């Protein structure tokens, strides 16, 4: 599969988790990697270029820190502009049919915070339903996100490398069609320790 990763972090200088993921995936070959904030520092997203990227890819991934239960704003801007009617959805909008749509998300809060009992009140997947429904409307296959919980605590404890290493494995597995899509699709979210089960 041709894998396309959109990375988005507006505060690149003080990123730890996402930076570790970048470093780990830097050497992975055959993957298209786009730093959205570096490509469009003034948000002047080039729709034609972006649509061409989508057309030549089979799996589209967004890698970002969870900000206010959602994406950093440039990903929203990207969606608003690139997923055009007649391209991604609506009449004639079948260009993305069958592609995989997924995310790699780092969350500051620990896992317990997500859910009815946690202080974040909802399960992460519930909070991600806009992404999931977007994939559905555009005839794509939504794959559960690869998630790091408690990113802030882990970065203090220098515990980021398992996650970053896992991200590398995950991307390579996607590239080489090694992911058991049925199994992976059945997960809520995928964390580093789940990888053995979903990768063949």
């Amino acid at each position, binding site marked *: 599969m041709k894998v396309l990763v959109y990375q988005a972090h*507006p505060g690149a200088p*003080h990123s730890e988790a996402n930076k570790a993921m970048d470093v780990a995936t830097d050497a992975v070959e055959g993957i298209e990697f786009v730093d959205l904030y*570096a490509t469009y520092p003034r948000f002047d997203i080039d729709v034609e270029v972006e649509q061409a990227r989508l057309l030549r890819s089979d799996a589209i991934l967004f890698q970002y820190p969870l900000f206010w239960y959602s994406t*950093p704003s440039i990903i929203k801007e990207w969606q608003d502009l690139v997923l055009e009617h007649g391209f991604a959805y609506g009449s004639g909008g079948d260009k993305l049919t069958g592609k995989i749509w997924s995310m790699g998300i780092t969350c500051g809060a620990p896992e317990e915070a997500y859910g009815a009992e946690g202080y974040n009140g909802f399960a992460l997947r519930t909070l991600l339903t806009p992404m999931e429904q977007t994939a559905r409307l555009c005839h794509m296959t939504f794959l559960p996100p690869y998630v790091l919980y*408690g990113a802030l*605590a882990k970065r203090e404890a220098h515990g980021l490398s398992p996650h970053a290493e896992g991200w590398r494995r995950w991307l390579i597995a996607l590239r080489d069609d090694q992911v058991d899509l049925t199994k992976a699709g059945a997960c809520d979210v995928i964390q580093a320790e789940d990888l053995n089960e979903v990768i063949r």
Partner: protein
Amino acid sequence: MTGFLMLVTVFLIAGVIAVPLAARLGLGSVLGYLIAGIAISPILQWLNVDIIQIQHFAEFGVVMMLFLVGLELDPKMLWAMRQRLLGLGGMQVSVTTILIAAIAMAFGLQWSVSLAIGMVFALSSTAIVLQTLNEKGLMQSQGGQGSFQVLLFQDIAVIPMLALLPLLALPEVAEHATQVSDSHGAHGGNAHGEDGHDDHGSMSLVEGRPGWQVGLITLAAVGSIGFIGSVLTRPLFRFVTMANLREVFVATALALVVGIALLMSLVGLSPALGTFLAGVVLANSEYRHELESDIDPFRGLLLGLFFMTVGAAINFGLLADNFVLVVGITLGVMLLKAGVLYVLARVFKLAGADRWLFTLGLAQAGEFGFVLLSFTVANNVIPQDIAQIALLVVAMSMLLTPALFIAYERLILPRLIDAQEQAADEIDHRSKIIVVGYGRFGGIVARMLRQIGEQPVLVDYSAKQLEALRKFDVKVFFGDGTRADLLHAAGIEDAKMLIIAIDGKEQVTHLTEHVARHHSHVHIVARAYDRPHVYDLYQAGAHDIIRETFDSAVRAGRSAYEALGIHPFQAERLAQKFKKTDRQLLVATASVHKPGVPVSENEDFIALAKELNAQMEEELQGAKAGFGIEGADGWTPPPAKIAVDTPEEKD
């Protein structure tokens, strides 16, 4: 010499007193001039001045006016209105002529005399009507356009009339007339030249030649106007602008108009028509606004003089003796002309206020009537005594015209408010933008405006630049955009925005001051040279002040950040932060700015700038300590502990 100075002084003072007074009373400048003329007629008589001769000289104002009218009309527009020109104008002239001639015959005049009088009275006053329409801003209305078309046709119709009139000559007045032509001839300054035939001193290229030669010469003359206008003027003006002296350009413009008038006179055509054609040819020229603003003062002065001579030439003795007759004929003529105009307006679908403007505006006889009268007398067509009365009628009707315009405004318009509002919808709604200075700066602004479909009026003073731009089909008007009259010609009165993109610091400030004071409705975007200039422009009243190098320098700084390996988005943020800080500094130091004093010599400024800089440095360093990198405040997560314990932490 003193006599001449005396004369000039009398005319000038009369105009200077009467016109503002008339304007104050809402009577319009034309009536002011006419009254001034009447007022000074005793002085002129005492000075023994030949008013008619001055009038012939002043008629050149009409020639200039038609040149200016032509400048506003490009050939396409002229072609588009050909039907109305011929229909409306042709009907007005022919029907009015025939009716007046018929009535004159009914009063027992000979048919040839009647026909000549019909022609004399059929013509209206281009000078008064166009001046008034322009003054009142009615030129673009339907009624104004219709009036213009009729006037233009009349100006053209004068030519065949002058050809026809001699055929109507009466043998019995011939003898009497030789004396008249002696006293009336030989005034060389005659601008209209139509009566040049009786001018002993005048020259002609066509007199005494066979018809086919006359035809060829005439064609060649008209053709040469086209040639001069479209081919010759550009290199000529470019050559002249190299001297970079305004008066040389003015002289060239005058030479152009006078020269064409002369050429037309030489071949026996109307100079007014000739210069009008020259104007039309130049309507698409980039020198148009400059020509307009250069010729306009002369036109104004000469027309003013012309109106004064009309007032002064009224022969009060004769008028007193024939008062009832003259007033009766005048009213009769005006009523009849108005009737014909009203019917034509109906036929040509002018409605409401426009119909009345057309009807009342053109009801007078005009300055071409004077010309025809002196010509008919000279050619023994009309006996002297009848011509004298007719002359009074023409003058009288011109005197009454401003009153008709006032009646239109005060009595008719208020009742037709609805119709008027409808008409207003037809006015072009496109916003008007003037860009002064079409160089590296203004060029970019203009291109951006064109991107959204605006067609800004571009003005630049560099002929070289113009030449280069022509190659790209960019239309730029030549002229010094800092001059008030040029701005006027470019349409500052109804402009929405002025973009000042010229180089000179002082000039930008002065222009800003001028426009902010006199055209407060105009939004001014001004190019500032440096920081102190920003303050000057702010005080001058500019709405948007753009430092000419600031944004590009900030971008260069941003590129440097990126090249240093700073993430592009951070580089962008840092650049924005720099801009913001700089702006704060600009506002903070405004209070200590002293106009005209360089910042390096302004102690207060230096002290404050130092203080503010130190303050800002401190803040930035603080930022570094707190967030890790200067300027990148934002998207910073809370410390790990708080992130985990957020809810508890709050209690």
